[in-house]
């Protein structure tokens, strides 16, 4: 297993270096502030040939180090670009599976989301925001591998709790006059397919729908999202009921009124 990952990571890095010479015109002078060997490669994968710029208005928050590499909290906040956003992509350069999510925020939700992710090692975590004028705005943060105080990182457990609780949703709405925040947790193993011959099994679609059934949050998820993921979304305004809908890659659908 380890061999397989190493192989794909190595070939990606070789590819990355061969792509160094073909960066998009006009952006070549912008050096990666996170100095990642994978930047040119991941940029090609996720942004393609479209124009892009590093932009401090796209904020990615993470702790200074990954205390538990299976549960690293991140927040992506593009509030400064609110009203112009088409979609948001998040990824981790040095993960064996880099893609974390693709999000179409729409105009009913603030462009800010918090969740937890898995990382393999120290890595840049990035978010790219595509604005309606066709430009990608890229922000990111460097996440260090586990620090260490008195002990090693805590070890997870192999408790098959999820088998009898798959798709159970716990949630709460936190309201104020101008906005309402939804936090929810979904029981799901979010298996990557890279460990111990356990096939990949993960939530891949998430929608928050208003009472008319229209999606106000639409997000595609990938295996680096943590087991039993917890999400935080902020809706504009504080009216109406919402329904959470999820589907995993085995076709299981989960639905709950929040």
């Amino acid at each position: 297993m380890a061999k397989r990952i190493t192989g794909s990571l190595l070939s990606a890095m070789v590819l990355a270096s061969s792509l160094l010479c073909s960066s998009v015109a006009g952006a070549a002078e912008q050096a990666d502030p996170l100095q990642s060997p994978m930047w040119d490669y991941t940029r090609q994968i996720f942004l393609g040939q479209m124009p892009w710029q590093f932009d401090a208005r796209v904020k990615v928050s993470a702790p200074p180090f990954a205390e538990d590499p299976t549960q690293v909290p991140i927040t992506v906040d593009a509030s400064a670009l609110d009203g112009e956003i088409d979609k948001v992509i998040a990824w981790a350069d040095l993960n064996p599976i880099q893609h974390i999510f693709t999000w179409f925020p729409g105009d009913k939700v603030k462009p800010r989301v918090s969740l937890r992710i898995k990382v393999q090692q120290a890595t840049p975590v990035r978010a790219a925001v595509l604005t309606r004028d066709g430009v990608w705005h890229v922000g990111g943060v460097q996440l260090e591998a586990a620090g260490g105080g008195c002990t090693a990182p805590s070890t997870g457990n192999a408790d098959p709790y999820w088998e009898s609780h798959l798709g159970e949703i716990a949630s709460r709405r936190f309201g104020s006059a101008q906005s309402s925040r939804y936090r929810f947790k979904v029981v799901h193993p979010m298996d990557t397919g890279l460990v111990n011959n356990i096939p990949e099994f993960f939530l891949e679609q998430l929608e928050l729908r208003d009472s008319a059934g229209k999606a106000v949050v639409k997000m595609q998820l990938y295996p680096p999202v943590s087991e039993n993921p917890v999400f935080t979304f902020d809706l504009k305004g504080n009216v109406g009921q919402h329904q959470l809908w999820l589907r995993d890659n085995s076709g299981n659908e989960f639905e709950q009124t929040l």
Partner: protein
Amino acid sequence: MLSNKSRAWVPLMAGLTLSLVSFCAAAQTFDYQLAPQQIAPDTWVLQGKMQDFSRKNGGNIVNTGFVVTEQGVVVFDTGPSHRYGKALRAAIAKITDQPIVHVLNSHHHPDHFLGNQAFADSTIWALPGTGQKIAQQGGAFADNMYRLVGDWMRDTDVQLPHKPLEIDSLALGNHRFRFYPMTGHSGADLLMLDETTGVLFASDMVFYQRALTTPHTPGLDIWQQDMARIDEIPYRQLVPGHGPIVQDRAATAQMRDYLSWLDTTFRNAAEQGLSMTELMATPLPDRFAEVRLSRAEFARSVVHLYPRYEDAAF
């Protein structure tokens, strides 16, 4: 190793890191320069640095201690590595010719027991829960220590405790030791009071001027209950697991203050709907901000403990 982390990525970097570490560290001398400090009759403490594990300190961030009786020596904790264990043994030999009879491991965290190999010819005691946790997690801890401090760890293997500590007290020479098993810090934590001198070896149940760590606490409520029990112990001097020795109740007062603040802060955050990254940005009160490593340990504690508070608030 880490195979119980079933849903993690494969830990493929471990082997690579190891070989790099051994290569880069060749220039260092690896001398812990242990200097036992006498704090009471027959009683010495080796105070570690108030830091995180690093390649510079070799993992010597911990307090260990020993008591010399006319029938042999009792050692409380063996340090972070085989090298440390040997250095501790050499430091004891400079002070007494007495044999080392009893060795105690306060709990299963790596900086407290990975020096055990140097004491394999003594009786190594630990609470039954500590023995089990060392057997289950000791190897992963040792691997992680190699990663964090490098070649200081050379030849370090897990030496399990020999005997489960299921007695309340033990006499050796003219010293009588009383044991207090607790759980607040790691699930199995041993405190030892030398009734002859009034010195309490408090293990990691007590940190002082260095922020406490929470990766294996059964809960802040349990730790707080244990703190109340510690305050009833008739000690005259307290040796914390990390940080300076105290002759008063300052260390336990700081512990109680911080544990209570942490518990309240997490509960309020969950009730307000804060995410983990928002909670991590919470400013620390001045009285905690000046405690060593408080900012980093607060962030770690959020990761360890906030999910429980979130679950309770959902």
